[in-house]
């Protein structure tokens, strides 16, 4: 209902006509094999699993399940490619191949966006405007580093590590593949990539691109499967480096599994970012930042601003404006260009989110959800906020990985800082204020790898990303992201 302060209710007079992205231009095969040694090959396991559209619960395709023998084959193909052409190639030529990948992704951007949306449930607008262009940009950026590594690490000689095993999550399937594959190749490594079991399709499309780009056989291999496939990759003795993005729980298991060995690893894990709104912030912009921070990609974002801290004097105003804004968010068909919040990625993830909603209420939090209708079929969660929660509540401490925001208030700068840092995580943070000096004081104090000031969820290939504390080890992106894929030695 419209009030003098609520300019966003349109009294039901405004309806969006459907604006669906067409899918007649995309090619999804009925079945996908493993991509090993430059060929699409049937799995030795003989097994396939379904990948479904979480918005319709319908099967999109069947995908090969890689077992230990398949992973072994992929690692051997990667080793052969490493010893053969790839590590001996002129660095500038390696760069040219990676540029080709960037260009082909740009050419096929629309197809990639549609498939990413179908397979993972994310709104087409995000896939189109964020995931796919950023993926191409990552390849473009790292392509240029291939013949410039001596400038990144002055005084040291760089060498590739060998075969990199890369395990990527389901929230940004193509983009996370790009974050990992691009720097690995630029530094002269070869790759065995393991996409997430709920979102394997764009990785298979990337395999097509890599084949079309004419990369030597075996430089990039893709093995699809679930946790077991990833575990085989982590423990394989022929792998020199593990790059993992996923939960802190699995990250811990991987770090333990690698203990005592010589494999280099980077872990990009969970988060529970504080988004801090000071009274002197531009409130309307801050509200947009809160919405972007927690509802972007259904909240399936490791750096999501899932803990909101609002200075007491503006808390009531901010929460009211936030609720008004939430009411305008459209939850529904990911392929519709009007959609703000798409489908939850999987049934299991929806159940996890719903269990946290229950926990939040049981712990005494006040839950508020928007009134947006959701489709009958598929996995959906309305944008949700909890007020009246405290530092010890599980919805404040634990990563939910959904569109669920826990709101607390603070009075002083120091209180905000200490509450923000009261978490085992340290991936990202946000600060909203008109005072530049306060921004830098905050960025100094927040124990997190990325801090956004008067903005949120910004990503760029040139900008390093990664966590402090239990949010991970190492950085991806930028000059610093090269480190993960190189050995540094004394100059001879």
């Amino acid at each position, binding site marked *: 209902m419209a009030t003098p302060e609520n300019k966003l209710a349109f009294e039901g007079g405004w309806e969006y006509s459907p604006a669906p992205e067409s899918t007649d231009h995309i090619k999804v095969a009925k079945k996908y094999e493993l991509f090993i040694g430059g060929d699409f090959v049937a799995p030795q396991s003989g097994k396939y699993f379904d990948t479904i559209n979480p918005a319709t619960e319908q099967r999109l395709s069947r995908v090969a399940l890689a077992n230990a023998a398949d992973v072994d084959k992929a690692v051997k193909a990667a080793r052969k490619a490493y010893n053969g052409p790839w590590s001996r190639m002129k660095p500038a030529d390696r760069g040219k191949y990676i*540029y080709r990948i960037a260009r082909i992704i740009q050419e096929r951007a629309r197809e990639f966006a549609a498939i990413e949306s179908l397979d993972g449930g994310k709104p087409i607008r995000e896939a189109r405007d964020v995931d796919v262009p950023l993926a191409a940009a990552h390849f473009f950026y790292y392509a240029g580093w291939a013949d*410039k590594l001596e400038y990144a690490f002055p005084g040291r000689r760089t060498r590739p590590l060998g075969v990199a095993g890369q395990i990527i999550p389901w929230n940004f399937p193509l983009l996370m593949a790009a974050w990992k594959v691009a720097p690995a190749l630029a530094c002269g490594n070869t790759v065995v990539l393991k996409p997430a079991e709920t979102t394997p399709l764009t990785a298979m499309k990337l395999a097509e691109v890599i084949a079309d780009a004419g990369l030597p056989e075996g430089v990039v291999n893709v093995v699809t499967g679930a946790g077991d496939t990833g575990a085989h990759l982590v423990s394989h003795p022929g792998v020199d480096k593990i790059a993992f993005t996923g939960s802190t729980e699995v990250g811990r298991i991987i770090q333990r599994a690698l203990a005592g060995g010589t494999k280099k690893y980077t872990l990009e894990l969970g988060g529970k970012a504080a988004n801090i709104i000071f009274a002197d912030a531009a409130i309307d912009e801050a509200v947009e930042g809160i919405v972007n921070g927690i509802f972007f990609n259904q909240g399936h974002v490791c750096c999501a601003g899932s803990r909101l801290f609002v200075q007491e004097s503006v808390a009531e105003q901010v929460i009211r404006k936030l609720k008004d804004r939430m009411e305008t968010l459209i939850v529904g068909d990911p392929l519709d260009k009007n959609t703000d919040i798409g489908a939850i990625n999987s049934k299991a993830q929806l159940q996890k989110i719903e269990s946290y909603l229950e926990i939040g209420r049981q712990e005494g939090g006040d839950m508020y959800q928007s009134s947006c209708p959701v489709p009958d079929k598929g996995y959906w969660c309305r944008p949700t906020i909890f007020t009246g929660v405290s530092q010890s509540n599980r919805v404040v401490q634990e990563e939910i990985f959904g569109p669920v925001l826990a709101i607390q208030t603070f009075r002083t700068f120091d209180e905000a800082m200490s509450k923000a840092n009261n978490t085992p995580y340290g991936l990202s943070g946000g600060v909203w204020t008109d005072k530049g000096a306060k921004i*830098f004081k905050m960025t100094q104090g927040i124990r997190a790898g990325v801090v956004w000031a008067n903005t949120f969820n910004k990503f760029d290939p040139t900008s390093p990303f990664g966590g402090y504390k239990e949010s991970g080890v190492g950085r991806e992106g930028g000059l610093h992201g090269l480190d993960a894929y190189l050995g540094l030695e004394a100059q001879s």
Partner: protein
Amino acid sequence: MTTKARGGNQRVPVAKTYKIYIDGKFPRTESGRYFVLEDNKGRVIANVCRSSRKDFRNATVAARKAQPGWAGSSAYLRGQILYRIAEMLEGRREQFIAELQLQGTTQRAARTEVDASIDRLIYFAGWADKYQQVFSAVNPVASSHFNFSVLEPTGVVSIIAPDDSGLLGLVSNVAPTIVGGNTCVVLASESMPLSAVSFAEVLHASDVPAGVVNLLTGMRSELTEHFASHMDVNAIVFCDAAGSTARTIQELASDNIKRVVARGGIDWRSEASQHPYLIRDTQEVKTTWHPIGV
């Protein structure tokens, strides 16, 4: 122009008029003058524009006008545009090889030069979003300030390209200048000017905004002084000038404290000649202080 129909029903080829490139257009020199380019048998290859001081001044106006927009475009975009130039040059590889041969280069050397030019463009395209990361700094000042230094383009750069390397020498000096957000006015090789004109056509087809690169052909002896003295040029890059010419350039440059970059005796065919310090040569360092506190 010397191309002859060899009798019979053979088609008569159309010869190309080589013009200069200012503000994204291909005018003739306003002076109406020309100089003759001959092959090694003394036959006329082309009548080449003998650009004047006025052409240079027009080009500088165009470069100045284009500079803020070009510097303001994202590093990613500039990188992609340089990459696009390489793509276009690759597609016209045979034309450039033939043109270098026409100007007296052997086929093998011409091929090497064109390939190296394409690769050099890719090399500098890659630097677009990286040189800042290599050359910038966060400075740990003792007071409670966040202090950082970044590079910014110096502005409009006049370039006197190497004489002995018609394409590669040109590319090797233009690419690092523009990738850093400068715009430029270039005097092409006097003895091998054709590649520069054709390269302007490549630039024209590569989404390079008008005025970012302006290319003149003409006599070094006439134009050097203007390249060095113009008060709206921020830096001059001159190749292979020595002795009294170098001294004159430096003296004239001092009128508006131009940055003077002298490049001599460089073998542009060598990969050792490509490095990011060529970008830094036409950059300024800007330091910002910002307080930290509540």
